């Protein structure tokens, strides 16, 4: 009765096993998908449909305002991303590897910072660099001049500064997470072998941080492409980005067809980049 055959032929059951879980599980996916479809996919589909109005694409793509907005959006996003990466790397490096009293508080502050809306930064910059603000006030107070020299706030540079400020924490967070997993023994061995800090950063830390940098950077790039609040608050006539163009076409000019065309272009760019981000961050294990 107690059978133990080492080499029994495999018994293949004639009756195929019913995949008992697959069907009900799929059914569970339907309600959320239906809701999302109604409130998001269907509206998005209508935007695409609306954008296909005769001549809409030709008109918008040919217009100077669209091309300006496209160029401005892209260079602002790229510039802000580069700025965030450099600044975020340096700051995260110091927080993680040259710890000081209050370093913990700084990382908590970063978390809080992330939960504030972006336009607050522009509002704050108005007081710091605005025509009647801290910096210009200091200048006029010191030199007696009638006006201060800082008037970049309503130019793209003001938007760039605000975006770098606001989005740097988005780079720092994944970096700090990656640094916390870095084996400190590795750093100690490297420095006991006589490597100088700059060399350790280049040879040990940077390679480890690359995935987090790539993931954080591409996320920030997408968010910059889509940023609206900062640009709106700047109130500069000269700075028009794609989201701003969507808003002004739709709300200020009531030109829905044009707004939809710009929206489709914007979506294509950011969804494409976001897909890249997902691939990168999955590879990075983030």
């Amino acid at each position: 009765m107690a059978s133990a055959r080492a080499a029994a032929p495999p018994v293949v059951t004639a009756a195929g096993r019913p995949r008992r879980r697959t069907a009900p599980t799929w059914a569970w996916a339907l309600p959320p998908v239906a809701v999302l479809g109604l409130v998001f996919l269907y509206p998005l589909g209508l935007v695409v449909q609306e954008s296909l109005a005769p001549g809409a694409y030709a008109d918008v793509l040919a217009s100077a305002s669209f091309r300006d907005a496209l160029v401005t959006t892209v260079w602002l996003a790229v510039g802000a991303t580069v700025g965030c990466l450099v600044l975020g790397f340096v700051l995260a490096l110091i927080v993680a590897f040259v710890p000081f009293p209050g370093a913990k508080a700084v990382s908590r502050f970063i978390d809080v910072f992330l939960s504030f809306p972006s336009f607050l930064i522009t509002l704050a910059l108005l007081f710091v660099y605005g025509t009647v603000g801290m910096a210009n006030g200091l200048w006029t107070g010191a030199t007696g001049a009638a006006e201060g020299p800082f008037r970049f706030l309503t130019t793209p540079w003001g938007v760039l500064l605000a975006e770098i400020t606001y989005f740097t924490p988005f780079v720092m967070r994944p970096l700090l997470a990656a640094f916390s997993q870095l084996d400190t023994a590795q750093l100690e061995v490297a420095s006991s072998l006589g490597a100088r800090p700059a060399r350790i950063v280049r040879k040990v830390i940077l390679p480890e941080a690359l995935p987090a940098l790539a993931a954080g950077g591409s996320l920030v790039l997408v968010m910059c492409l889509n940023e609206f609040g900062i640009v709106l608050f700047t109130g500069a006539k000269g700075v028009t980005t794609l989201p701003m163009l969507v808003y002004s076409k739709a709300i200020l000019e009531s030109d829905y067809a044009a707004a939809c065309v710009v929206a489709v272009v914007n979506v294509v760019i950011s969804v494409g980049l976001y897909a890249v981000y997902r691939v990168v961050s999955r590879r990075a294990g983030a």
Partner: protein
Amino acid sequence: MTSGIRFDGVSVAYGDTTVLDALTLTVEPGEVMALLGPSGSGKTTALRTVAGFVQPSAGRVYIGGRDVTDLPPYKRGIGMVVQQYALFPHLRVDENVAFGLKARKHPKAEIPARVAEALEMTGMGAYARRHPRELSGGQQQRVAIARALAIRPDVLLLDEPLSALDAQLRSGMLAELARLHRELPDVSVLYVTHDQVEALTLADRIAVMDRARLQDCGTPQELYRRPRTEFTASFVGNANLLPVRVGADGVDFAGAALKVPVGDASPGAAATLCVRPHLVGLGEGPNALRGRIAEVQWRGATHRLYVDVDGHRVKADVRELRDTPPLGSEVTLHFAPEDAVLLGSGVGDGTAPGVNDG
């Protein structure tokens, strides 16, 4: 008696990788069956097909004569204890133990008594109101066992239940498990382990697994004294595995004729001779082997000698020596004919595991 587990040609494959190959094995009602094997041998997969967490790609699994292959885990009526305890951290000890009873809609009035009984049985009665995080590893494991026993399963699955504990706790829990099984003689137990001591201590029978296949199955004594394959010989206990050629009433090893029972092995065939190191003696005697000392290890009560006999390394565990022979010196080893087991080359599937030096 209707409990017991039966594997009927159970295979599990992930893509091209077969992790369990046509396992056929019966655990009798009330029996403790140990699935013993190295990691990756398929033993845990076999247990998980009984629990229902792994779907076999072929074959059927029976619990108490009932085909459970297509049943979801919650309908199988098993008790299971895993290595990491898996106690629910948000529930108190008594709530953990009551979980299975509540999930099965057991009459509410009886639950407290059943919980108390199960906790009493594992000696955890005093900890009923604690949370798992307030308990030590050994205590958590006791609660996990109580939780599995509270539903009074016919079948208890233990997946490396002691490997997260330190050595001292482990031997204590081992005795505890043996006692529990004496108190619950009707429960069939499937005990997965990679530790031969656990298997030899607890099991009524041991199923030795390697490379997704069942290699051998028998009582601990059978497997230890009369292993049928080289793998069993080296994995259950320690073994010298010597390549020999079968003669008329003995074998040829390294030019020496050894007297050992040859059974029905055909003369002239190549075979492997298994001799346990602790049954090899130092000095003249029957079946003498001459060689040079290659290494000596002191292990407290014993000395382990490694002796080169014509290019083959023979291990001998001898009582602690007052004067250890110097390296390179010539020594004679011997063993009694009845202590040797001839493993035919046809037995097993020619597995040649690395020499187990444990």
